[in-house]
């Protein structure tokens, strides 16, 4: 294991040197995005106030914003968010560990790969989210049925990417290490694993969006609390501002997690960014 952590320390070290040029261009990069988002919100506000003008169909951003504030003040928002966050975090963590492990197993053993490949490919392509009602029947309406949905959605992209990353390790790099008399184990830790890290991270990134969708949809099918619950009960009460509040909170969570991940990638695998 010490070799593994060595490898990681080295990877992190690699990230310390960032290119100065990107720092200069950031404000301009953000400018177009900020203008576009603000413009979109403005358009939305205008359309919902003057064109649709019916709170049953569309809520204006200003109304959504006050709904979020009200929910936050009453503590409701926090209650729903924390439940969803726990479900997501548990499912995501379990799926990441399992996914990387299964990916390793498939890359290491051809038999393992042949045995698991149909399941992985099949379940990756299946909208397993449709099984959420079944999981709720099995595990009840508590958090574990949602955790299971998240696991199903996140596991397979991570597995597929881990396996692909290990499998596509450059033959020339392996040969270089072999010329020094390296053992298969050394080749794995010094070449295959580090060169699979960008792939693994890409799989984990893909899992964020899928996992968030999983949490919410599973909660819609049956739950006591969570952002999906909030959205469902707002819809039942035709409370559009609160419905949108739930959606917006989710969107912000997704954006922040993905952005955080991008930042992590820049630090961990800077050599893939050229």
């Amino acid at each position, binding site marked *: 294991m010490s070799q593994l952590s060595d490898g990681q320390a*080295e990877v992190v070290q*690699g990230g310390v040197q960032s290119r100065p040029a990107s720092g200069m261009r950031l404000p301009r990069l953000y400018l177009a995005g900020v203008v576009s988002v603000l413009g979109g919100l403005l358009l939305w506000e205008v359309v919902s106030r003057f064109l649709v003008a019916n709170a049953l169909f569309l809520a204006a951003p200003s109304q959504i914003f006050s709904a979020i504030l009200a929910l936050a003040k009453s503590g409701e928002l926090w209650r729903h968010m924390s439940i969803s966050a726990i479900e997501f975090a548990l499912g995501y963590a379990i799926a990441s560990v399992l996914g990387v492990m299964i990916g390793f197993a498939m890359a290491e053993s051809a038999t393992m790969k042949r045995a698991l490949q149909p399941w992985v490919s099949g379940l990756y392509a299946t909208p397993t989210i449709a099984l959420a009602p079944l999981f709720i029947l099995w595990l009840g309406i508590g958090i574990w049925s949602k955790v299971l949905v998240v696991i199903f959605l996140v596991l397979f992209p991570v597995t597929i990417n881990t396996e692909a990353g290990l499998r596509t390790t450059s033959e*020339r790099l392996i040969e*270089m290490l*072999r010329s020094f*008399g390296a053992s298969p184990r050394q080749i794995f830790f010094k070449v295959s694993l580090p060169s699979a890290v960008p792939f693994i991270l890409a799989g984990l990134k893909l899992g964020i969006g899928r996992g968030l969708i999983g949490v919410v949809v599973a909660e819609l099918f049956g739950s006591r609390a969570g952002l999906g619950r909030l959205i469902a009960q707002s819809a039942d009460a035709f409370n559009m501002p609160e419905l949108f509040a739930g959606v917006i909170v989710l969107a912000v969570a997704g954006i922040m997690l993905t952005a955080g991940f991008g930042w992590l990638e820049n630090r961990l695998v800077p*050599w893939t960014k050229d």
Partner: protein
Amino acid sequence: MARKLQVSHLGKTFGELRALQDINLAVERGEFIALVGPSGCGKTTFLRIVAGLEPASSGEVTLDGRAVRSPGADRGFVFQSDNLLPWRTVFANAIIGREVAGHVGPAERQRTMELLKLVGLEGFEHYHPRQLSGGMRQRVNLARALAIDPQILLMDEPFSSLDAQTREIMQTELMRIWETGRKTVLFVTHQIDEAVFLADRVFVFARRPGRLRENVAIELPRPRALAIKRTAEFVRYVDHIWRLIEDDVRASVIEEKV
């Protein structure tokens, strides 16, 4: 001088293809040997067999009297493409052979630092490969092979991706480095002038099947300056070797076009 490398009746086939046939040669300790020949005559295959990366189909390769079967720390391979690990610094790349051997102490670090200095990379130890030029990357490639202090250096067209000027500089640098340690070197190249400039002897290979055609001793005084390339004697060697492989090269070029 002691015999370093002995190759007897070496043959290699890939399925139907006879890549190498009945190669017999001997290399003395400290000799600089260049290998030239048309594309596809088996130079890389020969080097890989000596490195232990590829098994021979017949015959034998012995290093210091011991048969070669697998890669080992007594041989350092300098690859055509630098094969640097992009996530490692120059220093971490250069020391990887020592790491594989399982002992990286202060002495090994010290030696690796000295080697990086020797190949002209002092001050670049903490750079990453993507921050280096092609010439600098090949210097790391060379330092990495030297870092294990091998008995014999195997170099497969190490300068072929470099521009003409960088290439000439690398040739003189390699000569300077070689003079400091006098390691046994097998150096594959397509540039005949590079072979003549660097080598004590040039092994000329022929193709279909790949075999050793002639062994040309280069009796030019050392140390050699780049200016030697313009002397009549130098040009005579180049002409002689070129005539040996000319027909073969024509044949291989025509074949590759088809």
